[in-house]
């Protein structure tokens, strides 16, 4: 906003310095100010969700006024080049590819869309929204997951499913009531924790539509023809066809400044003076409005000069309005003005692919060159290829295949090929998973775990690695099968949860709050605790095999098989206990060094403590002879449930310092997990006591495995 005030005051300085005195000198009333600065309507901010404005301007039709029904497909070269445009969003520099991907995921619920038989990806979709808004407003890309949101504001949704995708144009009649309704929710309940599910979905939908509108309006200023040829004095400066956008003004800004000087105006013939002043005021009004619109656009422009500061201040990228502002103020802006010109020329050549491509390539190269001044260009390509490689989806495929092959190996125990194949597939899956996690670390310059989403990836990788190490020693395909199962499950869950983080944070690499901004504690405490989670879950997973095997009477005559599982479970719990205890204490030390309290009984801290206590209890009960094999495995499953409570459950309580994840919809998954695990525990307990009774009555208790 400051930028805008600077620019306006500068330009107003030019215009007002001349208009008011000139008008008074001329003995006339100054023309009424029609700028209506307070009435200018711009799309509402959606970044923080704090405001929802009802008065966004309508989506503009094409500059020529033609109504298009289709456009030529974007070539791969074009989407590749545009995908690598750097920009700053959500507090960090990222490629357009990532921005478009998460915006699309947030609004559309997935990263692809079918339009007239053509499957378009995020970059093509975002380009359509920006450059062909008149077409894109008919794309059915707004996912309304619950029709109740629309029926509550009087929209007939009977012809569609409960969860359906709508186009912007179809929803246009209800946009005003929707925004009013969202605004009402935010005013009535300032604490988001008080919102009902429908409240949350209403606000979310309103914000998603605002994000879409931001895209629709991203090139509005570039398309806007300023009144630069309305009078002959201006035509002399800007020519008959001055073009569009801020860059059209910048071509003659010095001459315009000269014209706007008081002396120049006074030197004009009296009949021209009021005409020229009127034209300048019209220009000022247009400029005011376009700067406000542009202010809400995408921050494409890095500063041109290196920022020297001892305070480690962030490098703030700006929108087109700030570039124009700097150019007017005479600040160094040549590089950015050049990009601005290229950007603003794009709508004019949008249908000419052969002209469009060099344009977008030049923009990419120029933006990356400016970003290089601040060292912010390095990871753009890496991030683009990271998302294009889709490591975690590929890992999921590998693990799923591994699981299928592992299942075959159980059916054909004598054949070595399935076992070897399972190893290979697990390794491929693990390699993809680890590579993905490592690339994320490099892109963010952070340790592997900073968000709830990343905990899933990290825990999955740790589970698979630990299981494979165990298999290396054990060689009974138990841990191998578990590795593939947990690998597939983890990758699947990570993909499901990515959508949740897209909706809330708009990115899975969000900027961290101040207290988390420390790589030392993130790499020690967080990784230790999550390693502890991994081991707890792995132990629980292996314990299932023992319990279910016993229950179904599998390999009855192979006590070694069961003893081997017990050893694995016991060992994994020891391994987990090490990291849980060290991680939990490190967390306390971090809290002590950050806030001055070692322990605050915060739910997440309590969750970690519960894991430590449960695992310590298991070990002591086992060493003290209070539980044997059956008890160990049942308690290992209970420990898995405690891990799930600590990992996800406490976030659902909505209290405490660590409730950092968005957990709508998680509850059902968690309850399902508890129902299954509770069932396993209950059935195992019954089985154990029935067995005990049989053995006791049969007088051979010593042979039980309890």
């Amino acid at each position, binding site marked *: 906003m400051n930028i805008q005030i600077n620019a306006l005051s500068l330009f107003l300085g030019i215009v007002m310095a001349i208009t008011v005195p000139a008008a008074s000198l001329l003995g006339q009333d100054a023309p009424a100010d029609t700028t209506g600065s307070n009435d200018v309507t711009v799309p509402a901010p959606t970044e923080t969700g704090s405001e929802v404005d009802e008065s966004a301007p309508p989506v503009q039709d094409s500059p020529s006024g033609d109504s298009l029904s289709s456009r030529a497909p974007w070539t791969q070269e074009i989407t590749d080049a545009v995908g690598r445009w750097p920009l700053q969003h959500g507090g960090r520099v990222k490629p357009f590819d990532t921005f478009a991907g998460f915006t699309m995921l947030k609004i559309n619920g997935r990263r692809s869309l079918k339009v007239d038989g053509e499957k378009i990806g995020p970059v093509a979709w975002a380009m359509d929204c920006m450059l062909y808004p008149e077409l894109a407003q008919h794309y059915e890309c707004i996912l309304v997951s619950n029709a109740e949101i629309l029926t509550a504001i009087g929209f007939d949704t009977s012809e569609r499913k409960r969860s359906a995708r709508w186009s912007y144009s179809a929803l246009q009649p209800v946009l005003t009531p929707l925004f009013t309704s969202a605004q009402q929710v935010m005013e009535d309940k300032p604490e988001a924790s008080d919102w009902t599910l429908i409240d949350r979905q209403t606000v979310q939908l309103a914000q998603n539509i605002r994000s879409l509108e931001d895209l629709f309006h991203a090139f509005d200023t570039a398309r806007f023809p300023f009144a630069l040829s309305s009078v002959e004095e201006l035509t002399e400066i800007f020519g008959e066809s001055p073009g569009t956008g801020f860059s059209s003004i910048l071509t003659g800004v010095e001459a315009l400044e000269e014209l706007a000087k008081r002396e120049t105006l006074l030197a004009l013939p009296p009949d021209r003076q009021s005409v020229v002043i009127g034209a300048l005021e019209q220009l000022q009004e247009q400029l005011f409005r376009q700067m406000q619109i542009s202010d809400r656009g995408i921050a494409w422009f890095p500063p041109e000069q290196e920022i020297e500061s001892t305070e480690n201040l962030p490098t703030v990228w700006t929108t087109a309005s700030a570039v124009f502002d700097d150019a007017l103020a005479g600040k160094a802006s040549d590089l950015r003005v050049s990009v601005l010109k290229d950007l603003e020329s794009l709508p004019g050549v949008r249908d000419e692919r052969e002209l469009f491509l060099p344009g977008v390539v030049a923009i990419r190269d120029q933006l990356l060159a400016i970003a290089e001044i601040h060292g912010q260009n390095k990871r753009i390509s890496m991030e683009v290829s990271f998302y294009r490689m889709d490591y975690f989806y590929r890992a999921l495929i590998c693990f799923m295949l591994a699981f299928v092959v592992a299942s075959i190996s159980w059916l054909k125990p004598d054949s070595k090929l399935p076992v070897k194949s399972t190893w290979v597939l697990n390794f491929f899956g693990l390699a993809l998973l680890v590579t993905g996690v490592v690339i994320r670390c490099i892109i963010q310059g952070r340790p592997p775990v900073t968000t709830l989403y990343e905990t899933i990836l990290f825990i999955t990788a740790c589970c698979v690695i630990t299981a494979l190490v165990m298999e290396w020693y054990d060689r009974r395909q138990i841990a191998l099968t578990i590795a593939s199962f947990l690998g597939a499950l983890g990758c699947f869950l990570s993909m499901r949860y990515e959508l949740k983080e897209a909706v809330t944070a708009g990115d899975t690499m969000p900027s961290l709050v*101040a207290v988390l901004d420390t790589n030392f504690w993130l790499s020690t405490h967080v990784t230790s605790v999550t390693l502890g989670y991994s081991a707890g879950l792995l132990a629980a997973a292996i314990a299932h095999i023992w319990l279910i095997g016993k229950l179904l009477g599998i390999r009855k005559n192979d006590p070694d098989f069961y003893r081997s599982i017990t050893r694995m479970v016991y060992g994994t719990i020891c391994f987990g206990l090490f990291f849980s205890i060290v991680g939990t204490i490190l967390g306390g030390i971090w809290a002590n060094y950050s806030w001055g309290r070692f322990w605050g009984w915060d739910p997440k801290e*309590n969750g970690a403590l519960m894991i430590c206590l449960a695992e310590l*209890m298991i070990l002591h009960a086992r060493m*003290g002879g209070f539980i044997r094999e059956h008890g160990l495995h049942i308690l290992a499953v209970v420990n898995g449930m405690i891990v799930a409570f600590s990992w996800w459950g406490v976030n659902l309580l909505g209290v405490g310092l660590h409730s950092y994840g968005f957990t709508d919809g998680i509850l059902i998954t968690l309850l399902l997990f508890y129902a299954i695990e509770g069932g396993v525990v209950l059935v195992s307990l019954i089985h154990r006591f029935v067995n005990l009774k049989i053995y006791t009555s049969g007088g051979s208790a010593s042979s039980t495995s309890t």
Partner: protein
Amino acid sequence: MKWSEKFLKTLGSQGLAALMMLFLLILTFLGTLEQAETGLYQVQKKYFESLLVTDVFGYPIYLPGGLLCMVIFSVNLLVGGILRLRVSKRNLGIFIIHVGIAVMMAAGLVKLVASNDGFLTLYENQESSEYVSHHQWEVVIFEIGKSPVFEYRVQQDRWKRADGDVLLPAQPGSEQENPMGLPFSIEISGALDNCRPLPAGPNWFPDSLKIEGWALKKLALDAENERNIPGLLLRMKPADEENHPAEEALLWGAQNYPWTFEVEGRSFAAALRKIRYSMPFSIRLDNFEKVDHPGIATAKEYRSDVTQTTGNSNRQIRIEMNDPLRDQGLILFQSSWGPSNARPGDTLYSVFAVVRNPSDHWPLYSCIVIAVGMAIAFFQKFLKYGRQQASRRIKDS
């Protein structure tokens, strides 16, 4: 086996350890769930700092309290895990772990007994040598117009312990605390943890004492302890009670002005406020900076440049997130800032958490000891497992 030996064996047994862990596990679980309803402060008192829990979510369920469990657990650890453990090569790791956990429990005990904490809020150019407790209240009495001001204080735990009416001697402190002597004693009664003063009227007939038509209305405890405002009845009894009758007043934690009264021609003031602790130095906030991540309203960092004045010496220090000021047994942390609804350009204040904790670094030492112990213990087990599996595979093949 003698009964004393039996007792010691039970006291140090793994069974007792497992049982205490089970109880602590249950208490932690319940305390976590109940936080959402009754708030952290109340839960902490009820589950973790108690000897006995008498209700769970309102149901009459009895459980040993967190404090009791931790005491038994600590004794069990000392007896069974350290004193009675015969240290050998096999269980060296276990022994070290137990020592580490004992250090941590000791750190907790020292913190419980010898620490206090509070906060200090400063706008730029403000200076203070006191910090304010988060939760604890005190009645303070001082003579008006005297300089320097000597405050006579009665802290919350004193009137809480007495549980009801209590006569407090007015002059028990050292000469330094109360050099001029108070010509009266005070009595505190009817203390309420959360209340509002209301005029007694046709719609409300208070059970508690009315003073000039007003009484304190008891309210349910709020989950956010900061919103609980206590109140009490203060009775001032002059030493010369024959010539000067006793006076009474209601004191409420959020009242703007203290109660003033005169005794023997001297004016006094009494107020109920959060406990204030003095620091051996003063802190002046020179500059507070909050830096947001570009384009979003998430704070990237916030930091305070302060001047610390001890006696005649000054020093400039920066306090920021994860980088506190430690001096003379006190630690000042950059805790938060406000007001939370500030708009860009508004003057902000900086909030420091101030802690006095003699066992500040002990958890780190215990963590290192425990990690070493666990590494030894589990590595031994892992090697043994590896050897077992290798010999099994050889046997199988």
